[in-house]
């Protein structure tokens, strides 16, 4: 296959960027999208041009490092991460636009690499259970209903890639935040910090400069792990509940 790539090139956070066009030849349909970029980068290196920087690591769809907007879609046309997207999803002669995640809270570091540390700070604000090592009770001391365990797992699957933010027209991080809030808040282990967790995480999310949620559903459509839109609804409920409880205390 032969493709024309148009890629966002930007030297660092201080310099302006622009789309640059690269013809790519000999693309095999079995290549992953990132392997296609690898071959382009090999060529660029030998031609003396700086290769395209992009985040990637596990290449099996679980680490959440890859972060490409391909033809306007976070992670591209398939519902998976860019590392699991294969070139057979494209046709010979296609022009493919590759851009970084776009959000004020995710500043561009270089080319297609962005800084997602805002997500880490949201977790640091309360996305945990305060249980120092050694302080845990016997695992079977608290049975967890299967439904709660399954619901927790569904939300815990979030890989923190940021596709939800990239896809949201408002650059909102509600889906990411709600996934962690719900994961811990449905479990009995998360109950003691249920209120403070949601209040602090939402406050941090807002402080990072993410936009508000207008429930367009773009986030859930782009999410490679299928975190549902109802996750946001549940977090709203938790947040309101927490405010009621805190005001009573």
């Amino acid at each position, binding site marked *: 296959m032969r493709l024309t790539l*148009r890629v966002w090139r930007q030297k660092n956070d201080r310099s302006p960027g622009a*789309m640059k066009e690269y013809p790519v030849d000999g693309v095999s349909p079995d290549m992953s999208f990132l392997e296609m970029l690898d071959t382009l980068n090999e060529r660029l290196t030998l031609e003396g041009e700086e290769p395209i920087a992009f985040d990637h690591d596990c290449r099996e769809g679980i680490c959440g490092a890859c972060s490409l907007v391909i033809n306007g879609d976070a992670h591209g046309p398939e519902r998976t991460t860019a590392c699991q997207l294969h070139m057979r999803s494209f046709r010979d002669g296609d022009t493919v636009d590759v851009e970084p995640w776009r959000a004020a809270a995710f500043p561009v570091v270089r080319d297609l690499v962005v800084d997602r540390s805002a997500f880490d700070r949201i977790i640091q604000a309360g996305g945990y259970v305060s249980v120092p090592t050694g302080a845990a009770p016997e695992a079977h001391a608290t049975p967890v209903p299967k439904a709660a365990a399954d619901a927790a797992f569904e939300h815990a699957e979030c890989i923190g890639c940021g596709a939800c933010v990239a896809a949201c027209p408002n650059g909102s991080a509600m889906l990411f935040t709600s996934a962690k809030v719900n994961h811990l808040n449905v479990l009995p282990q998360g109950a003691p910090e249920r209120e403070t967790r949601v209040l602090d995480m939402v406050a941090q999310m807002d402080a990072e400069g993410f936009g508000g949620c207008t429930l367009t559903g773009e986030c859930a459509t782009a999410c490679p792990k299928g975190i549902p839109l109802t996750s946001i609804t549940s977090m709203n409920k938790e947040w309101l509940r927490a405010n009621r409880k805190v005001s009573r205390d």
Partner: protein
Amino acid sequence: MALATRPDRRPTVVRTVWDSTIGKKTIMAVSGLLMLTYLAVHMFGNLKIFFGPGTFNGYAHWLRTLGEPFLHYEWALWIIRVGLVVCVVAHAVCAYQLSRLDRRARPVGYVHRRPRASYATRTMRWGGVILGLFIVWHLLDLTTLTVNRNAEPGHPYQNVVATFHTWYGDVIYIVAMLALGLHIRHGFWSAAQTLGAGSRTRDRVLKSTANGLALVLTAGFIAVPVGVMTGVVS
């Protein structure tokens, strides 16, 4: 050994709500639902126009005497008006602030654009602006009668007929009511999510209710100008 990491002092609930995007959305949801309730009553009252000037004008007069003798003449109406103004202002201010925030959250857009989200979702902001302008016109037209030529205070039936005898009156009203329908369609469902009432099992019910409300209200409101235009109401 710093094990407790959370701040002991936390802002008041009012502060928390006002400072947070979810809080502002909550304000929008609550004010929106109040206005929706008002609109349902308003539409129901409007339909009395099909029963003739006597019924309609009588209904309008009753509104002013509502709550008597506990309340003075027109007090109930003013209480409702004040409540509505608070709702509209709160709704609009939050919408404005959230929109600015949303725009600031994506300072650089995508080069490759593709249509996103549903029609009703995308038109929330402009639809809201249209509705805001419409409310101003609507008040000037049928409450203060400022822009309604041939209007006479105390004759609401005749004033309504007069408005819908003009082509622009019909156009403004019908366009605004279509915008209202779209606004309710996404707004009602969205409010339910914001207030945490949505769930996977309830989603279809909520969506159908939103569609039903949008349809009934739009049709109910538009019935009046259509009635005037077709001569059913004259």
